[in-house]
């Protein structure tokens, strides 16, 4: 219960609990309704009542008395356990839930939204999924996307590897959208996979009829059954509920705070378009086919990696802080082609001397880093800074965590950073790859 102090005392005094039908008497008005929980961030001093019309109202407890009319049941959350039937003719798809908008559920009686929605609830809320595959479902953790940490990438990679070695023909991961592209990149580096691994989510929560969750989930299952044995993100391709795009896990980024088509391939085209449950693969795309790679898990990572954005007026303290505090590597989001103010270059030299790799990316997001054009860039290269080429800053950050998990030698890390591990680079900048 999230009632605090005065309200909590009030409820205790009258022997009430959440879900009870109560009557609240004020000086000139009486309300009857079900006592509901109060949102955690709302302040003290009010009760929440659901009237018989279905409306909620807040009632100030000052000069108010209450009485119990009828004890209520504790609201039950979740769909209850039941077996999901298996059909030997269908492929086996694993669904792993990690929390986020895609996996939330509403308690209609109290009106509270619970993120405690499991992967099996997901199948039950979207029963048409059963037409397409058999499912092995599990809730790995239930966290908001912003609370994601590198250690969770490791846990997810291990779980997925486990599922694949147990015969899973494809994996769908339900994930919060805010940091989905980080997790997608992390899984791309940690896993060589013989089957598709598809991350998906929702921009509009699944407790609303207009949620994009249903189409994203179904299309993810279509992708997970496909021939594309890569880590991908599957999300709405436009504002319409019409098709989704499959983006390469290392080339994708969340580009809008709220639109359904927020995920975009950066410096790349989507691998495929999925419409009416049919997958159309981009013919220009050389993807890894199902079964070509054996399963390999390499989940060693270094978590102590810094991530800095350059800006007019940035001081070298930002770099010095990371060196002084034991960071093992640093990703810089430079301006334009990959620049920072000249004042920072001495700190980069210090990092190089202390064996701390610094990778330069661009806050333009689109285009590639090229530090040869201006003298500042050349000075930055001379200070030992490594180019992030055309990777997004986020993919670069994740890759550096992974590279530092493989080696602590500056030279080896530099080599790994410039080796194409999971399709994170493209040699060519295509005229089509901007704002698409």
């Amino acid at each position, binding site marked *: 219960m999230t009632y605090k102090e005065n309200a909590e005392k009030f409820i205790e005094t009258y022997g009430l609990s959440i879900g009870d039908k109560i009557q609240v008497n004020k000086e*000139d008005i009486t309300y009857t309704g079900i006592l509901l929980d109060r949102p955690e961030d709302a302040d003290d001093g009010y009760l929440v009542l659901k009237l018989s019309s279905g409306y909620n109202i807040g009632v100030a407890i000052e000069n108010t008395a209450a009485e119990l009319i009828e004890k209520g049941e504790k609201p039950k959350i979740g769909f209850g356990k039941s077996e999901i039937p298996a059909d030997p003719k269908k492929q086996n798809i694993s669904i792993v839930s990690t929390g986020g908008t895609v996996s939330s559920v509403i308690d209609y009686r109290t009106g509270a939204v619970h993120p405690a929605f499991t992967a099996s609830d997901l199948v039950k809320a979207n029963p048409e999924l059963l037409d397409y595959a058999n499912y092995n479902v599990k809730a790995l953790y239930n966290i908001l996307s912003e609370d994601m940490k590198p250690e969770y990438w490791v846990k997810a990679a291990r779980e997925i590897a486990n599922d694949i070695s147990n015969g899973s023909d494809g994996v769908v991961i339900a994930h919060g959208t805010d940091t989905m592209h980080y997790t997608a990149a992390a899984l791309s580096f940690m896993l060589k996979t013989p089957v598709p691994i598809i991350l998906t989510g929702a921009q509009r929560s699944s407790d609303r009829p207009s949620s994009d969750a249903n189409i994203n989930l179904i299309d993810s299952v279509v992708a997970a059954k496909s021939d594309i044995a890569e880590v991908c993100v599957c999300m709405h391709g436009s504002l319409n509920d019409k098709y989704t795009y499959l983006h390469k896990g290392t080339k994708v980024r969340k580009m809008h705070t709220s639109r359904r088509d927020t995920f975009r391939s950066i410096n790349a085209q989507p691998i495929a378009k999925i419409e009416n449950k049919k997958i159309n693969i981009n013919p220009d795309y050389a993807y890894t086919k199902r079964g070509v790679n054996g399963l390999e898990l390499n989940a060693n990572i270094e978590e102590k990696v810094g991530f800095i954005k350059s800006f007019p007026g940035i001081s070298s303290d930002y770099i010095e802080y990371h060196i002084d505090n034991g960071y093992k590597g640093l990703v810089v989001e430079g301006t334009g082609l990959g620049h920072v103010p000249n004042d920072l270059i001495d700190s980069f030299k210090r990092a190089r001397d202390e064996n701390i790799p610094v990778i330069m990316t661009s806050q333009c997001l689109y285009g590639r880093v090229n530090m040869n054009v201006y003298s500042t860039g050349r000075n930055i290269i001379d200070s030992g800074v490594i180019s992030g080429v055309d990777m997004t800053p986020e993919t670069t950050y994740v890759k550096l965590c992974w590279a530092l998990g493989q080696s602590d030698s500056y030279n080896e890390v530099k080599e790994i950073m410039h080796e194409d591990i999971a399709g994170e680079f493209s040699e060519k900048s295509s005229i089509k790859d901007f704002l698409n």
Partner: protein
Amino acid sequence: MDYEKLGLKMGLEIHQQLNSEHKLFCPCKTELVDDDFDGIVQRKLRPTQSELGEIDRAALQESLRGLNFKYENFAKHTCLVENDDEPPHSLNEEALDICITIACLMNMHIVDEFHTMRKQVIDGSNTGGFQRTGMVATDGYLETPYGKVVIESLGLEEDAARRIETKDGFTEFRLDRLGIPLAEVTTDPSMHHPDQVREVAYMLGQILRSTNVKRGLGTIRQDLNISIAEGARVEIKGVQDLDLMAEIVNREIQRQLVLIDIKKELVARNAEVLDEIHDLDELFKDTESKILKSAETIKAVVLKGYDGLIGREVQPGRRFGSEIASYAKKRGVSGIFHSDELPAYGITQEEVDNVTDYLNIGEDDAFIIVAHDEDIAISALEEVKRRASLGLDGVVEETRKALEDGNTEYMRPLPTANRMYLETDIPLFKITADRIEPISNNLPELPDVKQARIIKEYNLSEDLATQLVKRQEADMFEAIIADVSIDATPVASLLAYDLREIKREGHDITALGLDHFKEIFTLLAEGKIAKDSVRKLAIETIKAPESDVAEIAEINNLTMLSEDDVVKIISEIVAKNEGMVKERQMGAMGPLMGMCMKQLKGKADGGMVNKTVRSEIQKLI
């Protein structure tokens, strides 16, 4: 009809658009748009499942129709919020304050804290699949000539998107109306006479109009809740014309009475709807009926004991069969054929006999045929079976749509309370005494009070006062009169009548502000223009609102002539007609007066012209 004996109970629900500058949860304007739209998004809606396993009846019903939606959007007039591509912004406090005003006028208790709820509506009229709504106040009352009526609740909610058309499996909406704030006023179901409902609806409308609300077609919508003792509660949506209210009530009573009668007859006959759906394709393979020929499949169900009852009239021109058909139509068919109306529609008596034989039905039994694609036909017949079975219960609780002739048509089941849950994207909003007091201390005068007062205070005719109040020009009238010492009637008459005509002639009357009116009537009060020139001057002022009104009068030749000039002009006219004066003597007064007025109209006072003409004639005789 003896309404008391029937146990007639009625309540009203009134939706009134508020005239706030912005929408309820986004910064878009609260105006409808008739420009070409800039884009369309395609969406599907899906009922959400509560963990208690209860899907709301009404929501489920709509979802089964499997409709897809298109939304017309505008780069300038709508935003991502209406598109359901951005979370709602904060509650519009201007709209809330208008509701607080309404609550005070209706003696209501305002809630301590406003909670925005989501009310599931998946007919596509809301892009999110729910309407945002909240309770502002409860437990008020209104004194009426029929006694006290309890105002149960006042809600503040978003208006829905405008339905444009349905075709090719898509229903298309325009997003301009979505999100305009609406006040929803609900009375308790304590009204017992159609005249009373009409009066209360009128009074509520008058109260709403004394606050800052939208005016004009479609800005106020009345719904009627109605039941009789043996019947069931029915909600009739969209009663536009108050004068039609009594007719709608009477026809609904008639419908409920007939349905109760049909129920009794069905029970007596031990009637039953058979489950099986029969395939009649073979039977009709050589049919001449165009409708049947063009359908992919023809299917039928048997209603045992329903013969003759499906054709019973429930409302003028509507049969029990129409009730069943309206359920089937929700599944995409355009209609049904029932045995009480056959042979017809190109279906012959022989074919009817064949069906009767094939289905092996008795004299008391009926059948219903649907012709369409396989899926739709089956789904429609499932609805036919469901509605026909409900005939055994008598009247069904449902939401119906008011038709123009006073009849009603089925829309959807009544919504239940479990389609409401908290809108988690909007913080709870406290309504403190600090907010309410300045509003409750400055309430607008109610229309009837205002009307009575201005009649007395300014000595206006009742008609003029009524029009001023009705057209919301009373405040302008009083502001003008306060500053210009002039007879009230010409001022009232310009505002009450002429303005409307000027508008009809295509002039933008909103260009006229208080200062313009004050200048116009000052000119009149000072005798610089004639009464007859006021209307013309108002029009010319609209054309040049930035210019000085006295100059406009001058340029347009509307100013009065000096007395000397008038005498000069008249004496010239009289001199020219000296022959006639000599001949007719004072009898020349009429024709001469006409000639003078023709030249001096609007430039001299009529009385003065009369006096001058008379004296000029007298000079000659």
